[in-house]
Structure formats: C-alpha cells, structure tokens
C-alpha cells in the first residue's frame, strides 16, 4: 500500500531525506520518530504527494510520485486522511461542518453527508458537540474532530503529524486509542511523534527512527534479525 524506494529529498540548502526505503501494508501501525528536522514531516508530505522526491520513488495505493498527475493527486488524497498537531480546523464552522467539508469535495449527497457526519462524530465520541465551534472545544476534542474529518472518506492511509503534541496526558491517550482502533479496522497509520512514552506503550507497532534524513532504526528489521 505504501512503498518508499531509496527516496532522496533535497532542498536548496539541506538534504531532508537520504536513501529512505520502507513498506507498509493494510492495517499497519507505524511510528515515525526522531528529533526535530530528522525528516518525519518530509516523509508525510511525500506520502501526501504535496512534494515529490528528488530521486527514488514513493508509491501510495497504486499511485507513483514520479508519474502522478495533478488531478490524480486530489483523487489520491481522498484515500489519505491527514491529522496535524495544530488540528487545522476551520474556525468559523461547527464540528459537523468541518467534518462535512471533507465529504463535500467528493460530491456526496447532502442527506448522505448528514448521516455520515453523525456516525463519524459518534465514533470519535463527539456526537453531543456537533454544533460547537472549534473555539468552544478543548484541544483533545478539536483533535477528535480532525480525526473524524480525516476518516470521512474511509481512507486507506491515515497520516498524523505530531497529533498529540498539543494535548495533555489524558487527551493523548484518548486520541492514541482512536488511532489504534482505526488501524485495527484496516487503515494503515503513519504516526509521527516525539513522544517516546507513547511508542513504548505500543509494542505491536512498527517504529521507524529517522536521524538526519536516514532511517537509523527499524523495529521490523530488528524483529526479522
């Protein structure tokens, strides 16, 4: 489902990734760890096809970064959920409207959107707050809305860039459990984090540690050895 083949990503002044290769399948849960600037966000941006590799190839759900056309990227992104540390919710729209937003782009019918939004908000435990604006929700609740939005189109892959970075311990645990459930239901999850405590709590998950754009630790390789 996801394949990084010897990916190099260079910017004008720095090399963000240097020969990164890994593969993930359906329902895999993968932590991306490493210090700031190690290349975690670059991996996510390449998976989202917001950028293209300088060399090597990134393949997601049958689309290759070296061949994909602009209009196909939009189609691919409907199969990829993305959650950020800062939630990226539209502040002038309610929780339900923020989730509905992701369904509207697919041209879904309004009645269908209404039903689906209700189900998604129930799934993340926010059915009672569907009419609340982001400013009326706690950090953990806002992140749950962002997760509901990311799940709106039944994604094959869920990307999370430090999704618990702004949350307290309790909210972190709640959001993390939500990601586990999503992964168990068959969605591949790529979870970039600094939080090693969270990583330690998930022995089932694959861990990729990046340093200066290279994979310096891969739990799958250790398991195989």
């Amino acid at each position, binding site marked *: 489902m996801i394949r990084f083949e010897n990916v190099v990503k260079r910017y004008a002044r720095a090399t963000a990734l240097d020969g990164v290769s890994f593969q993930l399948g359906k329902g895999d849960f993968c932590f991306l760890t490493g210090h700031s600037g190690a290349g975690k966000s670059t991996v996510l941006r390449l998976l*989202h096809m*917001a950028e293209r590799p300088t060399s090597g190839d990134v393949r997601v759900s049958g689309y290759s970064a070296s061949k994909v056309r*602009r*209009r196909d990227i*939009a*189609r*691919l*992104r*409907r*199969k*990829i959920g*993305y959650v950020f540390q800062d939630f*990226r919710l*539209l502040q*002038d729209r309610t929780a339900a409207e923020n989730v509905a*937003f*992701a369904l*509207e*782009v*697919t*041209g879904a019918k309004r009645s269908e959107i209404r039903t689906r939004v209700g189900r998604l908000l129930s799934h993340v435990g926010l059915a009672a707050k569907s009419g609340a604006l982001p400013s009326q929700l706690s950090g953990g609740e806002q992140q749950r809305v962002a997760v509901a*939005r990311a799940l*709106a*189109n039944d994604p094959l892959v869920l990307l999370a860039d430090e999704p618990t970075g702004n949350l307290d311990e309790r909210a972190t645990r709640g959001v993390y459990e939500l990601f586990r459930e999503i992964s168990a239901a068959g969605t591949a999850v790529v979870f970039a984090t600094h939080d090693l405590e969270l990583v330690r709590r998930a022995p089932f998950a694959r861990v990729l540690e990046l340093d200066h754009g290279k994979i310096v630790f891969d739990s799958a390789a250790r398991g195989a050895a």
Partner: protein
Amino acid sequence: MIHALREALAAFRRAPLLTALSAAMIGLSLLVVGLFGVATWNVNRVLDEVEDRVEIVAYLRDSASPREVTGLQEALVERPDVAEVFYVSREQALQVARRDMAEFDSIFSSLDTNPLPASLEIRMVPAYRDADGVRAVAAAAGEAPIVEDVRFGADWLDKVFLLRRVAGAASVVLGATFGLVAALIIGAAVRISIFARKEEIEIMHLVGAADRFIRGPFLLEGLFTGMLGGGAALGATFVVYRVLSGRVVELAWIPVEWVAIGLAAGALLGMMASAVAVRRYLRTA
C-alpha cells in the same frame, strides 16, 4: 455548481464585514469610473450639439436663374456627404435678418432695395462632418459659377474639431487609467478577502478537493462582490449626478447601455480578480 453557489453565499454570511469592505472598495473605485462616464457623456453631448450646427452657406449671384439654382441644389444633394440643401430666397433672408436682429429694424425699414443675396444652406451627413469633409463640400459649392461666396466659419470649425479630438484622446487615456486603477483596487480587495481564507484553501487541498471545486465558490464570490460594488457605484454616481445637475451645471444621465456595461464590468473584474488570486494559492498548494 450548486455547491459553489451555496459556498459563495455562505462566505458572505460568515464574513459580512469583509464582504462589505471588498464591495465598498470596488464601489469607490468604480464610482470614479462612473463619474468620469457622466462627464465624458456630457462633454460629447455638448460637442455633438455644437457640431450639429455646422452649416455651409453658399451665397448666390443675383443673376442666377431658378433653373440654375435647382440644378446646383440637385447636384449637391446627390453627394454622399450632403444630407440636405435648403434654398433661402432674398426675401426670406431679409425676414430672418429682421427677426434675428430686431434692434436694426429701423435700418432694414429704411432700405429701398433688399441688399441680401439668396443662398443655399447645406447640411452635412454626420459621418462626413469633420473639418476636411466640410471644406470639400464648401469647395465643391464654390466652384459653381452662380455662387458668389461660401461661408462655413473655417476658424471656428477647426477649433470645434480640435476640441473633439482632444476630448476623445483625453477620454480614452483617462478612461483607460481609471479602469486600470479600478481593476488594481478590485484585485487588491479580492486578494485580501481570499488571503483571509488561505487556510480554507489549504484544507480543501488536504482533503482532496480538485482545483475546479476550490475555484468555483471563489469565482462566484468575486462575481457577486463585483456586482454589489458595481451597484453601489451606480447608486453613488446617480446621487452625485442629481446633486450637481441643475445646481452647478445642466447634466444628462448616461445611457442605459453604459450602465449595463459598467455593472457587467464590475462583476467581470471581481470574478477575474478572484481567478487570479485563487490561482496563486492553487499553484503553491
């Protein structure tokens, strides 16, 4: 399309102040264009009236026979640049002179004979009514042996047509400048409104919206804001026209086609400015 319309209207509801600000900026910039339109229309109207009075008078010799006069009259009317030719007899000329110059009535009464000659008054077809055209007709009339003299106010005519050329050039240059300034201001107003929603565009990309889907609501929003601004400019221009007309100077209101073109231009400018501004964000996303 329905989604684009719904989103465009929702954007007005969500940020009414920003919409009002954009529409006001568009309205003010188009007001300048509107006032300029009223001024241009009225200057042209005055010049048209002045040009309408352009007339060539061919004074006939007393010896001219009625047959010769009719022959010349017919020859002139056949020309493509001549609209009408009126014969004014010596008696009619005296009557007109006595009527127009009542203060000299005693002099006219004391005359034993009528000193005024008969004449042909020649009116031009408007399309040919420029300095060269008038001179050509005057020269043709002057060549006839029965014509003693031809008058058409040569100096005055040159000044009227020079004024027409200057006014025409000024209206093109000023009109283009005001139009360009309006377009730039409208572009800036729409860009501010789109910049405020930069995040929304980013999130649309994030969730897999196609460029066309993102662009639609913004184009409609630009169109509506432009229409709103254009309507406000039209209203304000009319108010200024009513305040000035009759009190400061006698003015005529611009024709309905100009109003329609102005409103359409406002709407189109708003939409185009939106298209340009959104394209920038789509390219960087």
